[in-house]
């Protein structure tokens, strides 16, 4: 066990000063960066320019990734086969000194769900890839032996990674850096879970950042690809650098002056817990209760015991993550970053563990092995409920006592999942195969949609949030379309100004909520395509940047003029191409639905507004109809011909690049 502060915790090219050593010239890099097609089976690499038209239609990051996924992937292939494509996409605004612009989008057909696989990662990798000359990587085939990609100033090599195999996610990054004798190298890596093709293995960079959801690390493992390392010394070039810097600084100031940014800089996302747990909006014991009783140690202030500072991603002024040291206990010492609010749910509320120490250890283990926090916690909470109900027993779990709050069993099971050992091997393929393997009544306790676990929020009192998880293109997920500001009870005039239609300020209402979800889908699709942090858009704060700010930033960075309306249409196009992908893979209206417990079991506790709540089936059906209508999809959720024409999707797949 390491006993010094790990190298990865130091963020070279500090988030506060991302400009260090970079020359700024009067031309945008967005037009010179390339897309590289890498065939790991053949060992071939072809670089091509990214067409201007494609930028106008899809921007970059998630948008171009989704275009490439829909265009290049054959329908209904086995996601673990060499035919699957792994896409790495740098956000269009990557490199600007604001809004956490260091984000990268990673996509493939998901091995967990069979639907759109897509996950977004912050940190410092994306700017390094851009500095190395590439904005998009399209990786196909399977390497004969463990390999990694080395990307450096316009060149890409496939290198041997035999010495990296079986190394954890922290060690792997250190070894790559040592091999290169260069501290500035940034890598995307997998851990043992990715190597073992656990279907919800993630991809990681630095100490904390993860492309967590939909199993992108599993795809790297299936391709024998241990890492992608980037080191670049090319220039960062903006179309209108002086105005861009001035505008970025203005925006940073505006964000830092808000109370949410101040709170997030102090307590990270853990601050959300105080509100949601008090009200009764989180699930505990899988889905049995909606508030953690005696959960005081999970309050954000508890992190003061461990925190040695806060850190942030590239281009971020907020710095929302704790750097912590756990000095005592059998796993100590642990140096880490985080944990997020979602980890608190995964290894705290959902499994009924009430100590911050437990969260920190579990957080460290999943990070080291490269497992998605949410999927791991969701599956373990489900298994604990099955154990309680007698659907599985000690024989099934090979001796593990999966009782609520049993932290020892939690840690053991995390390890078993990552290594595909013992009962962990039953859970390592995710909900759908585990339900088949366990059988009996296990399906009815699973809080999953399209095969993906929900986070620990309980959406029974909040129809807008329920519609968000039901319709998300990548499965139960808050990051596709969550209208989190619905929980703020904002004045209805303000809501109408944002959403363009009347929306009820009451978060338990169904009125106008389909509009909210569709609007947020567009906003987040654009956010993920320009590559900025979602926290710094209208996700947490109503005053955060949205369309008009995005439009100005795109112009100053690239010289491309896109109006607010055109940007909203880009968001709609990206969401619709994801929908087309899922339809082609066999998903339909039946998959945009909640687990039965949302309709049948009322919330047992909470403040009066959240207590005794369940989703009304009929009203939810109507809300879903309304949502399809807003998108221009038919009653089965299939985009109409005129919708596709309007969005320039009628010629897809077009293979522009």
């Amino acid at each position, binding site marked *: 066990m390491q006993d010094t502060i790990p190298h990865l915790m130091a963020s070279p090219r500090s988030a506060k000063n991302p400009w260090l050593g970079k020359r700024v010239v009067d031309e945008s890099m967005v037009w010179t960066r390339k897309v590289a097609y890498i065939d790991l089976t053949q060992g071939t690499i072809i670089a091509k320019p990214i067409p201007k038209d494609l930028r106008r239609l899809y921007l970059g990051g998630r948008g171009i990734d989704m275009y490439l996924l829909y265009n290049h992937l054959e329908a209904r292939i086995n996601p673990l086969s060499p035919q699957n494509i792994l896409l790495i996409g740098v956000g269009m605004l990557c490199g600007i000194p604001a809004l956490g612009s260091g984000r990268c989008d990673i996509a493939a057909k998901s091995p967990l769900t069979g639907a759109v696989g897509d996950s977004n990662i912050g940190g410092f990798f994306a700017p390094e890839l851009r500095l190395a000359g590439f904005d998009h990587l399209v990786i196909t085939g399977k390497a004969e032996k463990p390999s990694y990609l080395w990307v450096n100033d316009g060149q890409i090599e496939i290198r041997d990674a035999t010495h990296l195999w079986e190394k954890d996610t922290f060690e792997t990054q250190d070894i790559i850096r040592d091999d290169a004798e260069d501290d500035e190298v940034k890598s995307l890596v997998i851990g043992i879970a990715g190597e073992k093709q656990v279907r919800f293995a993630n991809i990681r960079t630095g100490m904390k950042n993860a492309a967590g959801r939909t199993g992108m690390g599993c795809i790297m493992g299936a391709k024998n690809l241990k890492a992608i390392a980037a080191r670049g010394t090319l220039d960062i070039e903006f179309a209108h650098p002086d105005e861009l810097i001035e505008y970025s600084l203005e925006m940073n100031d505006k964000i830092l002056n808000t*109370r949410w940014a101040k709170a997030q800089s102090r307590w990270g996302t853990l601050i959300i817990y105080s509100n949601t747990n008090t009200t009764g909006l989180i699930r505990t014991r899988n889905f049995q209760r909606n508030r953690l009783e005696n959960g005081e140690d999970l309050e954000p202030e508890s992190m003061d015991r461990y925190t040695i500072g806060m850190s942030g991603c590239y281009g971020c002024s907020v710095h929302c993550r704790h750097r912590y040291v756990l000095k005592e206990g059998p796993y100590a010492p642990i140096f880490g970053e985080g944990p997020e609010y979602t980890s608190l749910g995964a290894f705290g509320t959902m499994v009924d563990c009430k100590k911050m120490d437990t969260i920190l250890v579990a957080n460290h283990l999943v990070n080291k092995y490269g497992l998605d926090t949410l999927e791991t916690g969701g599956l373990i909470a489900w298994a604990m409920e099955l154990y309680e109900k007698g659907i599985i027993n000690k024989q099934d779990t090979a001796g593990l006592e999966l009782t609520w709050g049993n932290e020892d069993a939690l840690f053991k099971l995390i390890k078993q999942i990552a290594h595909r050992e013992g009962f962990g091997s039953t859970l390592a393929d995710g909900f759908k195969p585990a339900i088949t393997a366990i059988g009996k009544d296990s399906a009815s306790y699973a809080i999953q949609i399209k095969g993906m676990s929900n986070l620990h929020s309980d959406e029974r009192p909040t129809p807008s949030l329920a519609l968000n998880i039901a319709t998300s293109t990548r499965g139960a997920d808050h990051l596709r379309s969550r209208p989190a500001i619905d929980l703020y009870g904002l004045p209805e005039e303000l809501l109408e100004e944002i959403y363009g239609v009347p929306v009820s300020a009451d978060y338990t209402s169904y009125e106008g909520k389909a509009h909210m979800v569709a609007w947020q889908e567009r906003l987040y699709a654009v956010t993920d395509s320009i590559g900025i942090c979602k926290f710094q858009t209208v996700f947490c704060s109503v005053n955060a940047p949205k369309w008009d700010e995005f439009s100005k930033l795109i112009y100053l960075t690239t010289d491309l003029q896109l109006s607010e309306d055109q940007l909203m249409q880009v968001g709609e196009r990206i969401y619709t191409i994801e929908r087309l992908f899922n339809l082609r893979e066999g998903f339909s209206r039946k998959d945009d639905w909640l687990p039965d417990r949302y309709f049948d079991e009322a919330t047992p506790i909470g403040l009066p507004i959240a207590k005794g709540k369940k989703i009304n089936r009929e009203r939810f059906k109507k809300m879903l109809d309304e949502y399809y209508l807003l998108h221009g999809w038919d009653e089965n959720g299939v985009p109409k011909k005129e919708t596709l024409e309007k969005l320039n999707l009628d010629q897809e797949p077009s293979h522009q690049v």
Partner: protein
Amino acid sequence: MLHANLREIVGKREIIEEVHSPAILKHLLDKLAQMYGKDFKQIVDQREGKTSLEFLVSINGQVTRDVYTKLNNNDVVMLSIPVGGG
């Protein structure tokens, strides 16, 4: 219930106040502002005469901006800031 920096200022998660009818939210907020100062004072947007959008004030989970909302005994008033996402 107090959250975020309001909790830090007071040093407690919870304050129990007995209210005498007819009581309104404003009475409670004024009293807290007097006791704990500036940050509490800013909960009410003086220009608008409503709770500020920089704060999240709810009674029994129901968010309110109206400082004249009635308070009853056993009501849970949550004074927080709008932080969401998860």
